[in-house]
């Protein structure tokens, strides 16, 4: 029973900057501000931190942040590769480090100026060094102009439509639901700006079948968390969000944004592989999940996540969405902050912050009686998932 990290650690602090299109400051400052806010939220000081975890894509070094937030020493630090697929890895690492006694209190952060700085969707190149594994992978796609995340994901979305009869409107229903939540979230970029299904259907084509409103935003901002032992969490000021389970996942056919070579490409084999254990580690099943924060860089890939995690059968997510189950007041409200489609694109970390607020009962779009929230990291990449529990 791989349950050693289950409920050994809890998220006890969350912090964020504003989400914008041009933060006007460095990613380092954003990171420090978010970490400081998370520490204050937890009622802790920089000197209480002895671990850090973040994305390998994050441009801010642990030592620099530690010094500025008043920290003294880190016994543990780790990074997770693969863009938004790293959104759950740091929690796996933090919980493992705490459960094993490596350290007591881990700060997790992600800061990015993705709109005012390097825009991932622009087709701009990052590091073109011949040793960069991204470039080696993308060498089979860039020469054709096949160089945006929307286009890569369109391959899978098209297959999903072909195999299960889902339509662009089904993807639109996901976008409309996220924008509905964002419309009542003052921190969302699209606050008070809901869209209709017709708006979605008439929004311009980006990479067929993905329309503009199927694509997440580009944002500047930072989110940070404080994770500590379940024991210590009891003495702190916030309702703890226990990490009931957390897992990373890579399978044989996983590729970096370009999973085109498996037997099927319409699903998310990484989640198919890990979902059962995400539940068993927590001793829970899909019926126990009260709401979910699912990674939504592009709306089509929300659907197979609902299937992989057992909320509906394979190919039936379109019906689940048509029935309104992921909406406000639905059976499984998804991304009540507005998601990355509606709130901001902070590489999924703002979704995990919303999961913590739902556990605490402090979301602006609070779901009643939330005890368990499923959170997922990016799809189409090496990824991970976790279940948070009200402590």
């Amino acid at each position, binding site marked *: 029973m791989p349950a050693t990290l289950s409920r050994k650690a809890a998220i006890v602090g969350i912090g964020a900057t504003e989400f914008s299109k041009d933060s006007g400051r460095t990613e380092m400052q954003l990171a420090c501000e978010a970490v400081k806010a998370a520490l204050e939220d937890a009622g802790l000081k920089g000197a209480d931190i002895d671990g850090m975890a973040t994305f390998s894509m994050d441009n801010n070094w642990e030592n620099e942040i530690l010094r500025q937030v008043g920290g003294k020493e880190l016994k543990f630090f780790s990074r997770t590769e693969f863009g938004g697929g790293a959104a759950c890895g740091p929690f796996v690492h933090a919980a493992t480090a705490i459960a094993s006694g490596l350290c007591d209190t881990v700060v997790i952060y992600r800061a990015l100026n993705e709109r005012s700085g390097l825009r991932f969707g622009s087709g701009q190149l990052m590091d073109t060094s011949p040793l960069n594994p991204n470039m*080696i992978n993308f060498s089979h796609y860039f*020469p054709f*102009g*096949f160089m945006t995340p929307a286009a890569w994901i369109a391959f899978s979305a098209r297959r999903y439509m072909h195999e299960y009869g889902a339509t662009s409107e089904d993807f639109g229903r996901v976008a409309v639901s996220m924008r509905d939540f964002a419309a009542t979230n003052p921190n969302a970029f699209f606050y008070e700006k809901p869209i209709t299904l017709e708006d979605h259907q008439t929004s311009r084509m980006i990479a067929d079948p993905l329309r503009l409103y199927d694509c997440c935003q580009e944002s500047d901002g930072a989110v940070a968390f404080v994770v500590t032992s379940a024991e210590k969490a009891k003495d702190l000021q916030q309702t703890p969000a226990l990490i009931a389970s957390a897992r990373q996942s890579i399978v044989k056919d996983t590729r970096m944004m370009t999973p085109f070579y498996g037997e099927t490409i319409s699903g998310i084999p990484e989640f198919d592989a890990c979902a059962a254990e995400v539940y068993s580690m927590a001793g829970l099943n899909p019926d126990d999940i009260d709401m979910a924060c699912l990674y939504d860089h592009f709306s089509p890939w929300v659907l197979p996540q609902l299937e992989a995690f057992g909320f509906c059968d394979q190919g039936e997510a379109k019906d689940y969405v048509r029935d309104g189950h992921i909406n406000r007041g639905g059976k499984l409200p998804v991304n009540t902050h507005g998601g990355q489609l509606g709130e901001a694109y902070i590489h999924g970390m703002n979704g995990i912050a919303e999961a913590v607020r739902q556990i605490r009962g402090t979301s602006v779009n609070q779901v009643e009686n939330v005890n368990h929230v499923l959170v997922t990291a990016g799809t189409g990449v090496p990824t991970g998932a976790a279940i948070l529990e009200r402590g």
Partner: protein
Amino acid sequence: MSELSAAELLEKVKPLLNRRVGPYKSFNPVSRTQVWQWCTAMGDNNPLYQQDDKVIAPPTMMQMWTMRDAQGNYPEGSSTDNPYEILSIMEEHGYAGVMAVSYDQTFHRYLEEGDQVHHYSTIVNITDEKSTAVGKGFFVTEIAHFLDQNEECFAEATITYFQYQAPKRPAAPKSSSGPMKINRVAPIENYDNEHYWEGLRQGKLLIQRCTSCGTLRHPPQPMCECCQSTEWDTIESTGKGTVYTFTVMHYPEIPPFDYPNAIVLVDLEEGVRLVSQLENCKPEDIEIGMAVEMEIKEVQEGMSLPIFKPAQ
């Protein structure tokens, strides 16, 4: 041009240091017309310069008075020495870039109408070779003295240049005579995949085959995922297949591609998948399962790609 080391080049130019050259004279005395032209061009409305009964030259005009004419000549009576001989020698030896780094000026008095200017130039320092973001080169410092008709120094300037060797860049495409053409991003070629790109250059679409268990694989990778052998050869694909999935890219429009840009994932008849572009097909006519065939095209110099079209 001989290839000199940086140290040898320094040895060659150092004897020219601290040699004061000049005078370099001005074509015209300070005049109301030229002061008016300068102030107008610069948007300098300071009333000090153009008074009814008096004209004062803005100090920053200093360098302008002794500039060469449009043909590059100094006025008669000027020295024929090249004040920048050191820079010229460096340029001949591959340090062809020059960048002004700093310009410190000292003014001792205002020039007035009728003053006649000349200047002298002295190269006073050259550093050792330095590496910078723009390339390797030498910082060269010049001191210029500006004198009036009474041989009195009214201003001086300390100017530092960076004379550098720009890093070598790939040569521009031979055919391009117009604006610079943006190329497709070239693939990274390494031991694992160079056979693939070289095959395309030779007009063949090659699929990697494990020589131990016979499994085909694409994209290339060093080890067979079925039997872990690193021994492999290739077979030549017919380039025939069917569309497994597709997208039509509309936005953003990335140069040099034409939009909309149809991209297909093709199930090749040999049993592997390949990403490519689809041509000769209206976007609305693309369907999953449609038969396609390939033609290898040299899309730009040194880059050949398998491009698909609907099967005939």
